[in-house]
Every structure is written in structure tokens, then in C-alpha cells.
């Protein structure tokens, strides 16, 4: 099935794509068919800068389990540093 689901958010940071590093402004998150991963559905994240065109994209496709582990690891990494470092 296609889920058509898409979560969108504004972000600040940088990503490295096919043409090198670029500033990121947006991200989309959705659980749907992957392009490359060998799974029927994956948790897909596109880190984007639409102002630099559609190819300014860093894409990942993760199994649901991997995505949950990643989310936990991100939270754990942020929780492990002093709050003043997080700006």
C-alpha cells in the first residue's frame, strides 16, 4: 500500500549530499515504499533545502525497528550532555 503520509518540519543544520555539504532548511518524514531498501515499507527521512533545488537532498530509508532505535539514540545523545550545550 501507499500510505501517502508525510510529516513536514523546518530544521536548521547541514547535510552532505551528492554535491557536498549544504545548509538544510526542511525535512519530511514518512512511512511508505522505499526506493532502495529491501523492505516493503520503510521510515523515510528527506533532509532538504528546496531553495537549492530538488537534488539538495539527503535521504535515508530505515526499517521501522531501526528508525525507533535511531530516535531513541538521538534522544539519549541529547540527554547525555549538559543542557547549556544545547543552546
Amino acid at each position, binding site marked *: *500500500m*501507499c500510505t501517502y503520509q*508525510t510529516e513536514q518540519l523546518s530544521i536548521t543544520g547541514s547535510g552532505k549530499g551528492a554535491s557536498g555539504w549544504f545548509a538544510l532548511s526542511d525535512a*519530511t518524514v514518512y512511512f511508505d*515504499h522505499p526506493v532502495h531498501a529491501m*523492505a*516493503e515499507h520503510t521510515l523515510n527521512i528527506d533532509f532538504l533545502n528546496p531553495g537549492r*533545488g530538488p537534488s539538495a537532498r539527503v535521504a535515508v530509508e530505515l526499517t521501522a525497528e531501526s528508525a525507533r532505535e535511531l530516535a531513541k539514540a538521538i534522544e539519549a545523545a541529547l540527554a547525555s550532555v549538559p543542557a547549556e550545550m544545547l543552546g
Partner: protein
Amino acid sequence: MTESLTAKTIRITGHAGDEIEAYLAVPDDGSSSRGSVVVIHHMPGYDSSTKEIVRKFAAHGYAALMPNLYYRDAPGASPDDAAAAARAKGGVPDERLVGDVSGAAEHLRGLPAANGKVGVIGYCSGGRQSFLAACSLQLDAAVDCYGACIVKAPPAGLPITLTPLVGMAGDLSCPLLGLFGADDKLPAPDETAELSNILDELGKPHEFHTYDGAGHAFFAVDRPAYRPEAANDGWQKIWDFYGQHLAG
């Protein structure tokens, strides 16, 4: 079937007079009269696997043309980047889809040896769009491969608005072949059975097949969902169906 064909990227006039990219494959079989097929790509876009399907139709004697539905969103981008850009913008509006398929059909009717008959086929989201095109345009045969959200609205909570199309079923302009997987959830077998009943009541010719042991995307040879038995039988159903309604 012919081993010799020509395939290339061309420009066609799509919805609202926009120039868009499209992939054309034509058999080099010397035929003076052949049918045509508009191929609607799936959500992952105008990709190599769907271009392979376009060439497959040419190998079977049809002129086939696939409009790049994401061309406006990302001209010149790779198919996956274009699909991501289109998704971020909310997907392909139904009205634009119809205009692009209309432009593709018109281009096909103008090719040398075209017999004037044009079919449409779509996979996944393209299955729904194939039904939409067949209810909106004068076509000669339509194939819906596991298209969802024709009878039922999409599950709650999704940000993309997809209007069920079943209210348009009375305008279906041509016979419809539906190929579905029994294990699919969108569309689930109860949705396709309901569509079949509605088409029966309307007297619209259709032929639906639901394959046991297959789910969504069973035609996709490069995906884990590929089910060769269902796909091989499905292709034969397509050749028989188009042979009856488009060939010659």
C-alpha cells in the same frame, strides 16, 4: 512480440499547455496499425523500472508513453529526488493528472501507424489515477494495478487529501481490468469487491482478478513484494485485455 524497438525521452504538451517530459517506446516491427498505451508511473516516480514497463509494451507491439508526472516539481532531477519534491508539495493534483494523461493520449494518437485506440495502465497510486483518467477522458481500455482510494477515503490522519473516485464510475469510458493482491490492505479485497459490484450495477464492463499469496506491488520485479506467479498471470491478463480492446 518484437525484439526491435525505439525508446527515448521526448517532450509533450500536458495539463494547461505545459511542456513536460515523457518516455516513449515504439516497436520497430513495420506494422501499419497499432494500439497505444499511456503508462502512469507509481509514487516513487518516473523511474527505471517503470521505463522498463514502457519498453515491455513496445516489445508487445504497442506504442507506449509515460508522462513524467513530477516534471514540474523537479525538472531534470533524478526520479527519486523528484518524487521526494512532489511528495513534499502534496503530490499530483487529480486535475493535473488528467491533463497530462490527455496530452499523452493525444500525442500517441498522432504517431505514425496509430490506430486511434489508446489504453491506460497505472500501478499503485497510478492504479487510482488510471481509473481517474478512464472516468475523465475518452479511452479504449484501462488497467488498474492495485490502486487504492477509489471507493474508500484514505485512512484518517493522513495529510494528503485524496477524494474517492467511485462517484465518477458512471463516466467510465472503457472496459476496466483490475489486478489486485489478496493480502493488500490498500486496496483491500473488500474495497475492490465493492467497486466491482458498483460497476456491475452501472453496467460497466470490467474484469477483476485478485491473487492469493500476493500483496501490494506484486508486479515490481525489484521489490520484495514481487510475486512472479501473480505477476506472470497478470501480464497475460493484460496482453489478452489489450489484445481485445486496443490491437489492430
